[in-house]
């Protein structure tokens, strides 16, 4: 392979902390690789494992879930729910032959732009090491699931 593999990583950020950390990284002109696509949720507790599975099935090579540090959740303790879902999801995808390292949970407060940028940089290199996930684009005729996904995309 002559060209360097550029992984696609979907990052889920929390409105109150990690999204602001990413914002801070931007205003402070801290550099991190453009491989991550950030999606803002109101809270890491909003993270349905469906989002992660859809990202992986839809072409992402990795997923980063970010939230407030334990004990600092804007909604008291929803980030603990995210933690528990993440630990359970890791076990499940490992059984499906997906390296659990492709899904990562990172805590970052609104002041930790540098920390978040570092974590993103590290994860991009880790996923680059793992290589492309290349989950198949299933050829479908009339799947309900694929219709539902398309509707959501165009909505």
């Amino acid at each position, binding site marked *: 392979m002559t060209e360097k593999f550029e992984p696609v990583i979907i990052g889920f950020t929390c409105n109150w902390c990690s999204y602001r950390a990413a914002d801070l990284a931007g205003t402070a002109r801290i550099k991190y690789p453009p491989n991550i696509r950030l999606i803002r949720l109101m809270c890491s507790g909003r993270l349905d494992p469906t989002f992660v*599975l859809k990202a992986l099935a839809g072409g992402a090579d990795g997923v980063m879930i970010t939230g407030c540090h334990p004990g600092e959740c804007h909604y008291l303790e929803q980030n603990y729910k995210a933690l*528990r879902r993440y*630990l359970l*999801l890791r076990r499940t995808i490992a*059984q499906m*032959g997906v390296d659990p390292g492709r899904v990562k949970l990172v805590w970052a407060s609104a002041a930790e732009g540098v920390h978040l940028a570092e974590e993103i940089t590290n994860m991009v290199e880790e996923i680059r090491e793992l290589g492309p996930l290349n989950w198949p684009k299933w050829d479908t005729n009339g799947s309900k699931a694929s219709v*539902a996904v398309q509707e959501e995309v165009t909505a």
Partner: protein
Amino acid sequence: MTTNGKPKFAMYWAASCGGCEIAVLNIHEKILDVDANFEVVFWPVAMDAKYKDVEAMPDKSILLTLFNGGIRTSENEELAHLMRRKSQILVAFGSCATEGCIPGLGNFSSPEEIFEAVYEGVSTENPEHYRPQYNYSMPEGDIHLPEFYPVLKTLDQVVPVDYYMPGCPPESEQIAAVIDLVIQVVNGEAELPPAGATIGAGETTVCDDCPRERNVKSIKKFVRIQELEHIDPDLCLLEQGIPCNGPATRSGCGCLCPQAGAQCIGCYGPAEGVIDYGARLMTAFASVIDSNDPDEIEAILDGIPDPAGQFYRFNLAGSLLRAGTPAWKSNGSD
């Protein structure tokens, strides 16, 4: 269109166990209504008919086809296309056709691993290491076996489907109700549900039909049901630490298992609006674990020794990922 004026009915089994056919026959004397109102033209498990007989029928000449089983072989796929062409209403009947079911668990493994287990496994004596061959020539002529595909697909991943009827197998009362409805439609007394609808099932979850007492859940330990000395007959099974799939599973079965003291295993598939059944269950289970400490959470999760099997027992082929890596990589699509 028909030889005796009655609309035509067909039922086919692809990769399935035959339980769906038994469930249809379990509607007892209602089966006489099927005979009175339909001409059964094709139903391999119940009557003799050849594929070429179906091929000779005009397109759309069968009013109702109940198609059970997943699509695992080239023969399954051929019949899916054939029945789609010949049928006006094609129903994905039962869990295998709608979401893969137990045959869909083969999607965790490559075909080679599956053949290894079947032809070289501990329960098989095969000293000559015989394996079936797709093509074989003998003096009498060439014989062929259908191709075994790398992954099992649901019916709607192969052909468009009009209705979905979940269940492993669908409950007989639900089947009887659906047959009644189709008879009413034929007689102009009722209208068909909107295309793509799930029929013969509820819209909420098994929990909503469950008579067990439900409180705020907080779980310190998951256990397998056989490990419990005593099961409270009135309390929610999940609250007792038994991984019960009720929270994500579509209602319609009458909540039979939890009422009999066994956890729901999810055979009625995802509840209305759920995209990925396993993800919904992971959300539900993780939410009720009573710990905020990563190590303790891991220890609690050890109580679910096979999470993928727990969450995707019936739904692997119909899930977002659909198959484990060994299965799809065997297709050379890496």
